[in-house]
């Protein structure tokens, strides 16, 4: 059983003067994430919901160590990711449509490359390739350049590549963004399969139906703050998740107003 804890994460960005004027902000400092804390455990799917610009992607990027928080820390089984980045990254996978594969390479090349970067031994990498390519149906286009694959095929390759090292935590930002129905279903099935294998999935999305179908717990981010964090049944209280969150969102906006 593993635990990931995000503790008092904050992140701000400096806008250009033009951006400040267009967003009608009093200063060039924009607080993207404001003192966020949550915990996720093995064997669950934790959802991070929120409107566009709420701070979901920034939070995910901090968890994935792409960017550093201004304040706060991320802990994996009590160990700080700031102090042990290389060791802890071995337990994480980060997947988002923002992360692309090298278009000039093939699925085979990319798998081998990332197997090297994740320090997966050659024999294990070969075994994982066989399993994952079969699971995601990548065998059929393993030697085709990424540039020639459809969005759905690229997503499958990305999924296979991202879990080469059999991570404990999979951070998934907007998992079905830009995908057709079939590909979205494949991604959903992948998430549930990972959960069955005891992994923890942290997904950020603005799609309520996806959260309803796969999440065990969810938190809502509005303007960089977590306004609610609870189990799905508690959040929904017999209603649709969308209605529940809309009410919570309006209550929060009224309080701020």
């Amino acid at each position, binding site marked *: 059983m593993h635990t990931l804890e995000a503790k008092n994460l904050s992140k701000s960005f400096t806008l250009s003067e033009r951006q400040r004027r267009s967003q009608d902000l009093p200063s060039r400092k924009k607080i993207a994430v404001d003192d966020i804390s949550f915990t996720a455990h093995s064997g669950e799917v934790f959802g991070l919901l929120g409107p566009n610009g709420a701070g979901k992607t920034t939070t995910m990027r901090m968890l994935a160590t*792409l960017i*550093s928080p201004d304040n706060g820390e991320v802990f994996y089984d009590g160990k700080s990711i700031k102090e042990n980045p290389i060791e802890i990254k*071995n337990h994480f996978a980060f997947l988002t449509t923002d*992360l*692309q*594969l*090298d278009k000039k390479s093939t699925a085979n090349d990319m798998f081998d490359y990332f197997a090297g*970067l994740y320090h997966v031994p050659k024999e294990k990498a070969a075994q994982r390739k066989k399993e994952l390519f079969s699971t995601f149906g990548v065998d059929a286009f393993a030697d085709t350049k990424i540039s020639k694959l459809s969005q759905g095929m690229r997503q499958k390759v990305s999924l296979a590549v991202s879990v080469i090292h059999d991570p404990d935590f999979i951070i998934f930002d907007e998992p079905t963004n830009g995908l057709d129905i079939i590909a979205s279903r494949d991604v959903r099935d992948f998430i549930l399969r990972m959960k069955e294998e005891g992994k923890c999935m942290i997904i950020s999305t603005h799609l309520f139906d996806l959260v309803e179908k796969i999440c065990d717990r969810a938190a809502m981010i509005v303007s960089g703050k977590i306004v609610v964090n609870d189990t799905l049944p508690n959040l929904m209280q017999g209603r649709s998740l969308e209605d529940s969150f809309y009410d919570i969102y309006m209550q929060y906006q009224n309080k701020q107003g």
Partner: protein
Amino acid sequence: MFRDISTVYKKEIKSIIKDKTILLMCIFLPFAIMFMEGFLMSSMSDTNDKDTKHNAYYINAPQDLAAGLKAIGFSDEKVNKDTCITDIKNKDAEILVVFPEDFHIDLTGTNVSNIEIYYNSSNTESLKMQQKLSALLDTLRPEVFTINADPNITYDQGDEDYQVKNTIASMVPGLLFMTIVYGILALASNIIAGDKESNFLNTVLITPVKRSSVAIGKALAVMTAAGISAISAFAGLAYLMKTFQDMLGEHAVHYAISDYILVFFVVICVTFALVGLLLIISTIAKNSRTAQTLCAIPVMILFIGSFLTSNAGFDAILTKFGFKNYLIPMWNSSFLTKNILLSGVTTAEILTTCVINIVFGILCLSFVSHLFNNEKIVNE
């Protein structure tokens, strides 16, 4: 760390080998540019001029003058004056020189003979022949006094080959460095800026690999390609130098194998420094197009600077600067290469140049590693 660097390096090298365009630019282009330079120069050269048939004629030339005219390419074929003049106008003939029937040299200046020279100034070959003829006829003009007439005395106390050497030595470094960089410009600008732009770099940065390892792996791949480019350019240089020697004929200057080895060693060191600088630009640039544009700037500065050294005024400034020239990264290689080909260099100058460039390259790579640890490397 070495394993991670090796993983990144192997992947980049594989990409380079698979990319035919980059391979062409690294291996073939530098040699081709130097080769074309040599080919163009040899085709413009006058060395082979004596083998070229000229449509140049004379009428009534005295026997002793006729021999001189034939030596510079005139034909002894009998021609009609008016017909020949028309041919010259139509560029079917180059030149006609007509001596009066009673041609003589008059030392008193009271009854001088007039030689008529018909040529076409819009015809380059015609102009060349006219200049050769004028030079020949100048030697025959009566002399009031002579200057440096004794052929057994060396009046010019300087190196008689200096101008020739200076021209070669000023051109070669700029050409050499430019051709090397041309070979790797696209690669160096894309290897970081391109990956950043496509978000592939983000995918690599989330792996449990030190960011500096990623930076170093990429840098080594570019340096490998640059080394191949340098070898290709150097092979082209060998052909170019041979063409220069053939072009210059009796004025040819000869360089020893040790000169070539020294130049090659200097080339490798400056390539290291240049790659470091190009990678900084690639890391800072927002996209690969900006990176390519910016990468061309330092190369052009080096190229122009190298050519300017053939200018006496600029050369005088550099001479005043003295040993400090060797302390300026990359520029020192241009300056050193020129001096290797022109006047010779000392061990201290060679060592200083190489050390400065290697240190500069290492500093650049350190800066690239530092930039990789900055959040701005992440493409938003």
